[in-house]
């Protein structure tokens, strides 16, 4: 049935937006946990951990997200794993987010002045105490701005999972267009919805970065 674009269409798109938000959230949590592990492994681990992590990050950062998503979707399902689009989308987005977050956070950890590490040592703190009480809090403060900025990228990049059939906002738009054939109305609405979600995050990210610069300038 072909329909006209109307209020019901917006509700349909809104449902897609909820799925987008859900996928972005899962990606951020899973990618965040793994990214933190990888970042720590990269900064503190022995070479046998550092090098594979570095290779992983370099390879993922050199592959288009679309290809990563297709690889996860086709690769895993043919290895015999039951993988509906949500799982494939979540796994591939997590692979992508882990690589980038690990790199961002490694940079933030390394940005903490060397003097802090030595001072913590001379205070007699153990390795994990040093991390927990001295290094990570400072690294996290540096990291907040860029991390929020990357969240915007995650939300936008969920749109790529539309191409494996996961019904998030962009795919909802395509399906809606299939029923209305009014691409201008449909995709303008879709763009507006992304903007409404992303712009506040972008704005917040800029504010956080500015504040940190002001703080470090004041130091």
């Amino acid at each position: 049935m072909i329909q006209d674009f109307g209020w019901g269409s917006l509700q349909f798109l809104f449902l897609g937006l909820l799925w987008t938000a859900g996928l972005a959230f899962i990606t951020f949590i899973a990618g965040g946990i793994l990214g933190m592990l990888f970042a720590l492994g990269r900064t503190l681990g022995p070479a046998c951990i550092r090098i594979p992590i570095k290779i992983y990050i370099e390879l993922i950062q050199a592959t288009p997200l679309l290809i990563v998503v297709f690889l996860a979707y086709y690769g895993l399902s043919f290895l015999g794993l039951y993988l509906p689009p949500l799982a494939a989308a979540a796994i591939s987005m997590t692979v992508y987010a882990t690589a980038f977050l690990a790199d961002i956070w490694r940079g933030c950890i390394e940005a903490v002045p060397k003097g802090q590490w030595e001072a913590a040592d001379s205070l007699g703190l153990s390795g994990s105490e040093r991390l927990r009480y001295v290094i990570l809090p400072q690294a996290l403060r540096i990291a907040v701005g860029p991390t929020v900025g990357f969240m915007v990228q995650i939300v936008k990049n969920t749109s790529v999972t539309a191409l494996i059939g996961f019904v998030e906002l962009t795919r909802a738009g395509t399906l809606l267009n299939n029923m209305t054939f009014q691409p201008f109305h449909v995709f303008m609405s879709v763009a507006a919805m992304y903007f409404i979600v992303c712009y506040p995050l972008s704005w917040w990210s800029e504010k956080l970065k500015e504040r940190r610069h002001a703080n470090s300038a004041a130091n």
Partner: protein
Amino acid sequence: MFKFSSFGKVGALAGAALIAGTALMMSASANAQTIADIEAKQKVTIGVLTGIPPYDVTDSSGKTDGFLVDIARDIAADIGVDLEVVPVNNASRAASLESGRVDLLVAHMTATPERAKIFRMTNPYGAYEMRFIAPVGMELKKLDDLAGKRVSVPKGSTQDAAVSGYGIDGLEVVRFDDDALAMQALISGQVDATAAVAAVANDVIAKRGLAEKFEVKSEVPIFTLYWSMAVRKDAQELHQWLNNFIYYEEITGRLDELHNKWIGSPIPGGKLPTF
């Protein structure tokens, strides 16, 4: 310097979570092979093609309904179990069957030899006419009229194979992810013609008031093709049951009745072939 203890603990936890998650996902796929299996799990999972109006419609809560869903309902009712509908598209339907996500596919798949190598295809449950759709003024009475033109098709579809195989000089085949995008390309004027299911095209033209602009060029037949259901290679009993089901639905007129409900006409081409 580097203490393994805290790192190791978190690592082990993450590893355990990953394994548990995978196990959970794997156990969720029950590969039902026979009718008894399906009856045992009290549910039949059917992959249904979506995004192909007028054969289907998706409402604002994401639920899909249509010709194929009605057939799926009949299947579930006749076996006597609940129905789980899994929406698929051209790109994902093969994977969903092969991976065990669905028990069978009612996804407008034409029974080509390539597909028959991977799946068991049933006797057809429906037919469609593939035609070119083009602007009203455009001269399109035979295949050679397409020389130098751009024609959109869904990638990997039978239209794709057919149109690519014609070998017409200068014909550019432009591939999109699904039928509707290929149709949209025509409506937006990005291509000169598209190869689509005649019923779908007529519906789009009528509902969007495009009768002045586009028409189905019925003088150039591409083909009349038939849609089959698909099951996995080892699901012989299910395959035979479905053939029976299709046979019965046809002779009782139920297939035509459903087709009429959604498309407005009986199934084209008369009696469905069997093989």
